[in-house]
């Protein structure tokens, strides 16, 4: 299974697209700031608007669909990561 590991604020390049995972911590959703907390991240492809994700969500990188397999908040190193697996 094809995987893509994105260290927080590092920049990966996949299929010609810069991809960044950022803003990883447990918090409410941006669309519902008063709602429940969960471990969330933002995925940014190129200069598109950030997509807020939790584990299990799918994101698009170009024409490809990727599933968010794991979100890791790393309080020791102070940098987390997001692991994507190719969907479909």
């Amino acid at each position, binding site marked *: 299974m094809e995987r893509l590991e994105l260290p*927080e604020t590092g920049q990966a390049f996949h299929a010609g697209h*810069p991809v*960044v995972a950022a803003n990883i911590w447990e918090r409410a959703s941006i669309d519902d*700031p008063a709602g429940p907390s969960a471990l969330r991240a933002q995925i*940014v492809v190129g*200069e598109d608007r950030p997509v807020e994700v939790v584990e299990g969500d799918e994101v698009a990188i170009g024409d490809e669909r990727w599933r968010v397999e794991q979100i890791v908040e790393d309080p020791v*190193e102070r*940098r987390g990561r997001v692991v994507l697996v190719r969907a479909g």
Partner: protein
Amino acid sequence: MSARAGRPYDRTVPVHEHADAQAQDAAPAAVAPARAGPATAAALALGLQRSAGNAATARLLQRLVSPQARTGATGQDDRTLDYRRHAGSVFVRPEGEHRSGVDADDIQQGLLGDCYFLSPLAAAARINPQRIANLIRGPVDTWPDGTRIFEVDLYEGHWIGNPSKRTVRVSDRFVSTASGDSRYAQPGDVGTGGGEIWVMLLEKAWAGMRGGYDRAHSGLMADGMTAVTGIDTDWESIEGRSDARVWRDIAGCVRDGKPVTIQTRQTLTAEELAEARDIEYTIFAKHAYNIASVNAEWQTIDIRNPHGNNHLNGFPLVRLRRFFDYYVMSERSFR
């Protein structure tokens, strides 16, 4: 250090292959006084302030209380990474670029978490590209397989000030993906042999100074700034300072040719992330940005991302404290 000084070449185990081959003594973050001194941290700071002045005290305190870890050991073994040659020229000079070939826009961060190094590099390159170009010499040697060896000068800061120059020898073999692309800093402008490699060489030399890419992952903007400029830094927390004071500092740096970088907060609330979205900026927490210019009429700041995209151009001064934590300024002009 001359081209032939240092450890002898070993053709079997290429010493310049891996960044951690350049491993040297890590600078101690804590103070180790040579003689009996103050018993408490407060007494130590007061004594230091009297003997070495405010700037040295600030540098020491920054290292002790900084919200960022000095190093971020991930357990990665650099020797297990796939290194490949990148045959591009050190510098490529497209029309309109400075004659040195160095341009802040050549910088594109990769997977390594070294925004704290690449942002000061961008800030400094924007002010004086020739001084950045002068950090790299070579190739000083070429191996039979074509691998080129370069010498790179960087500076190591000390809490008492007076950064010292360190010369690091690195090859043109960089951590790469299976398809041969650089995993970390990206090549810049494309020339005849491929993308230019000056940013990759500086990043590799920095990793070598830190003891490997693993130890270059996460760090202090002040260390990155001193490394590329050879100049000590000041840092200021935004909290507790008026917008006018922050503006005076940042605009003053831009006017005087002092590189300045700015760090986002460690976390942002859902409301703050929503605010960023509403004003159409993509902002990454725990990330080091660099200042390109200011607009006095509109009181806005052009803040650049070392990723080479998602810049925060025209960022309003009045919103700075919502998203940013502190800024680091070179003590002297880099012109």
